[in-house]
């Protein structure tokens, strides 16, 4: 029993104890107990992950658990990376929960919602730690059911939460079945269900089997990862879940979909055919673009963050696709960089999205609304939260010196790599991917400017926002931890280099993509470097320097009413809202977003030429959901109604069914 095993054992034991304690203790201490347990489970998981990415693997088999299969655990560097990621997020969320969900807090204080929290984290740790098909599926489904319970935490007062829960339940189960069939098929074809056995047999499988398995698994994993067009559950569930749960789901759970793709595609199947990766790339492109466009026009802060998750997952998938394509083309250096970019972006996204969702939770707690149009003015009322949210937004917008920038830079480096012998498809696909990443980055910047600018700055646009007060210290502490992690990843991404090198080495690319990195990020095989530390120091140092210099030479500032071209006096009604901010972008991408607009003009009775009032309504429904899923739901409902005709209540009809079956069996016996 080495340190990985010990840490995992502590994590699972703590989850059990935490759940029981969260259930048993009275309401007053419940959030403290559950939050502490969650943080503890996360810390233990992160410790296991840290040991694993440092090179300490572990395998174990517990035949008496999980009937008919037994639990097999196997932790390598890749698993360790995701253990670390999940654990880290859980620590932050655990600390945050103590302040958020407690009495007087905004979040739910119900037994179930708090007791399930550590179990959810444990389930998320079980997924990467799993070493066999059955164990993986067990973790996957445990994760689904616990997260479902958490999404439903506010079911009582929010019909939207109930709908979200239902969408999530149905889609996650469909995804589970796809993965189940895929992995069971793989296990059957490989003649064993442990990952080790599959890994050994993986490359010898027929292309039909491996392709089929990859497609099925991809469907399930991409849906869990929130990739468009398998995403509709995500903006609903992430928006309606309590914010600490949104953070866990968006930052950690969604990544396990990514983990699944890496594990199955690169590890178990051992790479694959080119079309797999082109398909994955298509998922990535569509997710990134559609996600960020929806985020750009969203006015619900949490919906914005949720669609931004789809976007970031799209970028991660794009990185994985590039890794697959470059491996296929024999360009191992670029493949390693692409893989490193995807994994690093997963970690970065986990960092800033935890921070942002926790920030959204603080806003929700302080104002009771998520509608950016109703917010504003929080930077003076909640300065610490605003500052922390800014750190997250900087990362999410992928601007230097934020942490998102480094991984997007890596991704671009991988995509900019040129290999003429890789073939025409790749030659065309690479620039398209670059353009998509660039457009995504651009719109992403606009999106987070909107979120920060209209949500936190200027004047409050509602009395709720006006009366907002700063969050309690526990919540700020949790967010502070996340902000520290973001800052660390931003200025010193190279600390992750040995781990990423070990992972890439383990996945048969045989390359250490970030081998030479120190203060600078240096790539092997690609002659580009940056120095995130110096960029960060440069921007911050120069800005501080200029501030000092300006103060030294200039006069003191004075506050006065805004000039606004002499228009005053200003009211909050005159401000740009989130809707108006996004209007130009919405117009530009009208064809994709297809907004629904209604203009109702009412006339006074005297004359139809006069106008009494004009009512303008605009809605931006998720077009893919409306066009792809709603018809499906309608069709299923129609089938259900039509199927009532099967059971009319007539005993004669029922006997006729049986007689028909009898005749069929007899005829089958006769014909044979």
């Amino acid at each position, binding site marked *: 029993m080495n340190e990985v095993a010990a840490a995992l054992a502590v994590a699972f034991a703590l989850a059990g104890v935490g759940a029981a304690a969260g259930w048993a203790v009275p309401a007053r201490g419940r959030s403290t107990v559950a939050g502490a347990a969650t943080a503890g489970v996360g810390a233990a998981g992160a410790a296991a992950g840290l040991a694993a990415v440092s090179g300490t693997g572990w395998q174990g088999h517990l035949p008496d658990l999980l009937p008919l299969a037994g639990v097999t655990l196997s932790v390598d560097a890749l698993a360790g990376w995701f253990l670390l990621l999940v654990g880290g997020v859980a620590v932050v969320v655990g600390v945050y929960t103590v302040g958020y969900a407690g009495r007087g807090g905004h979040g739910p204080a119900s037994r179930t919602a708090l007791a399930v929290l550590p179990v959810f984290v444990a389930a998320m740790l079980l997924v990467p730690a799993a070493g066999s098909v059955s164990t993986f599926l*067990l973790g996957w489904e*445990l994760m689904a059911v616990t997260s479902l319970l958490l999404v439903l935490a506010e079911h009582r007062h929010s019909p939207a939460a109930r709908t979200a829960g239902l969408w999530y339940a149905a889609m996650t189960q469909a995804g589970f079945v796809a993965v189940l069939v895929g992995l069971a098929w793989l296990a059957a074809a490989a003649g064993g269900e442990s990952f080790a056995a599959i890994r050994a047999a993986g490359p010898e499988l027929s292309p039909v089997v491996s392709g089929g398995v990859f497609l099925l698994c991809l469907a399930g994993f991409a849906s869990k990862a929130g990739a468009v067009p398998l995403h509709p559950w995500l903006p609903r569930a992430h928006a309606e879940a309590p914010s600490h749960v949104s953070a866990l789901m968006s930052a950690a759970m969604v990544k396990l979909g990514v983990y699944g793709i890496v594990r199955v595609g690169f590890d178990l199947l051992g790479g694959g055919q080119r079309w797999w990766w082109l398909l994955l790339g298509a998922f990535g492109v569509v997710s990134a673009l559609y996600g960020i466009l929806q985020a750009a026009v969203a006015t619900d802060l949490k919906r914005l963050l949720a669609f931004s998750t789809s976007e970031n997952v799209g970028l991660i998938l794009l990185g994985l696709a590039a890794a697959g394509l470059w491996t296929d083309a024999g360009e191992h250096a670029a493949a390693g960089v692409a893989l490193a970019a995807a994994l690093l972006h997963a970690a970065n996204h986990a960092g800033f999205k935890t921070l942002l969702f926790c920030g959204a939770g603080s806003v929700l707690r302080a104002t009771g609304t998520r509608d950016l149009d109703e917010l504003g003015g929080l930077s003076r009322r909640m300065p610490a939260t605003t500052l922390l949210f800014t750190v997250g937004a900087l990362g999410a917008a992928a601007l230097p010196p934020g942490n998102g920038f480094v991984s997007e830079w890596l991704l671009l480096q991988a995509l900019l790599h040129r290999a003429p012998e890789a073939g025409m498809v790749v030659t065309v696909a690479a620039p398209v991917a670059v353009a998509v990443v660039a457009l995504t980055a651009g719109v992403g910047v606009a999106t987070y400017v909107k979120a920060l600018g209209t949500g936190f700055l200027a004047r409050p646009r509602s009395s709720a926002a006006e009366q907002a007060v700063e969050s309690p210290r526990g919540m700020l502490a949790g967010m502070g931890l996340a902000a520290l992690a973001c800052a660390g990843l931003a200025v010193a991404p190279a600390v992750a280099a040995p781990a990423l090198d070990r992972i890439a080495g383990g996945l048969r690319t045989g390359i250490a993509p970030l081998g030479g990195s120190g203060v600078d990020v240096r790539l092997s095989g690609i002659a580009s470097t940056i120095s995130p530390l110096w960029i960060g120091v440069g921007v911050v140092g120069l800005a501080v320097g200029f501030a000092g210099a300006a103060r030294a030479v200039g006069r003191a500032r004075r506050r006065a009413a805004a000039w606004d071209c002499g228009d005053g006096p200003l009211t909050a009604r005159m401000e740009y809202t989130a809707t108006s901010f996004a209007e130009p972008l919405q117009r530009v991408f009208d064809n994709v977003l297809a907004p629904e607009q209604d203009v109702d003009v009412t006339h006074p009775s005297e004359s139809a030429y006069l106008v009494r009032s004009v009512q303008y309504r605009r809605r931006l429904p998720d077009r893919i959901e409306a066009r792809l899923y709603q018809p499906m739901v309608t069709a*299923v409902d129609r089938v259900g109604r039509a199927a009532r005709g099967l059971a009319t209540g007539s005993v004669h009809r029922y006997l006729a069914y049986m007689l028909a079956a009898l005749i069929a069996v*007899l005829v089958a016996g006769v014909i044979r």
Partner: protein
Amino acid sequence: MPPSLALYLPLAAPIAAAGATVLLGRRVAAWVGVAGAVTILATGARLAATVHDGPDVTSGLLRADALTAFMLIVIGAVATIACWAGVHHLADEAPEPAAARRYLILVQLFLAAMSLAVLADNLGVLWVAVEATTIVTAFLVGHRRSRASVEAAWKYVVLCSVGIGIAFLGTVCVYAAAVAAGAHGTTALNWTYLASHTAGLDPDLIRLAAGLVLLGFGTKAGLAPMHAWLPDAHSQAPAPVSALMSGVLLSVAFYAIWRYKAVTDLVLGPGYTRTLLLVAALASLTVAAVLLIAQRDYKRMLAYSSIEHMGLIALGTATGSRLAITAVLLHVLGHGLGKAVAFCGAGQLLRLQGSSRVAAVRGLATRQPALAGTLGLALLALLGLPPFSLFASELGIARAGLSAGQGWAVAAAFGLVVVAFAALARNGAAMLLGEPQPTTDPPTSSGRPRAAAIAPLAVGLAAAAALGVSLGPLRDLLHAATTTIVAGH
């Protein structure tokens, strides 16, 4: 207690309990009934200890091997929960003394008939026992004498009698084949004899028999297209009886199919029954899925969920490998426990609500947290979610099916399971979640169910969850029982 005596106990105990009911007061009689159920469970465990690695226990017409012991455990476990819940059911419903007595007697006879079915070595006696279950449960289904329950009882008796008749025709065919192969008298229908003397059996006749038997017992097992009686009967019976019918009676019918399959597969090879079972499995899953979509009655919803699970069991039986059969057996136990809890919970809900319409129940989680929690967890168990054992068994069925090259069937089946999942989740969410409407509280509602009434359900859920975590001592028994079904391959 010598094992051969233990063979008679599962019959004697419920019959004795039924007899005692005549003498005792209602409350005591109800608890005596629980004792009858516990006796079956204990005897099953006792027999399991003997047979899981030793020879079969035989005495007269009765015989117990590992499969029998396992089925006795299933019957005993589900019956314990159902009878225990039945104590409170009777206390709450407070029927006339005569009706209560008749109810208690019939339930015990029902248990005895099911025990006989799994203990009989002779396939003819097995048939008689299964048909006897129809007869004793007919009045339980029609217990309430309302129009709906009379209708349900009529359909139940007619459809099952005709269906089970087909099974008898199949039994006659097997008998004819055995006689033609040189067997005599009662022995010719003994399963032990047939399973060990398959060489002379005429394949054509066995083929005919296999089809007929599958249709016949398939009717009792609720396989489509012979399923139509099931939603009516299960929704109209009193809750504990629904629990028994859904939780074990269906499985007892499937037990008969396994016994026959073990014989016919030795003669015909697995192909023929596999094809028939696959068709039945997919038909059942389809029927269950499409009728669940627009389901408006929660008891019927649970009944269709039973059809869905029987479809899965048929799928696993069709696969027929060791893993598949072990998974199927575990599925039977898990489904029995889960469905018993769900039906008993639904019964309490019906009493509180006065209507079995889904639309009549809103915000139960807020109004009745304990009952809603129990029902919700039972629903999660039936949806095949961990930690409940149905997760492990469904996983096993899927893995086994894919290993046997039935990928398309598994994919189709689990696709339908997703539809059923969504439909069940939708109705479950509609009932459990949300803000309770003040107007939906009918005047009949007499507060919350007592903790004592929830206790049997909690025990059932705990058992289902424990099984999902680890089989413990059942592990060897399951493997031994699997061997009795799969030994031939």
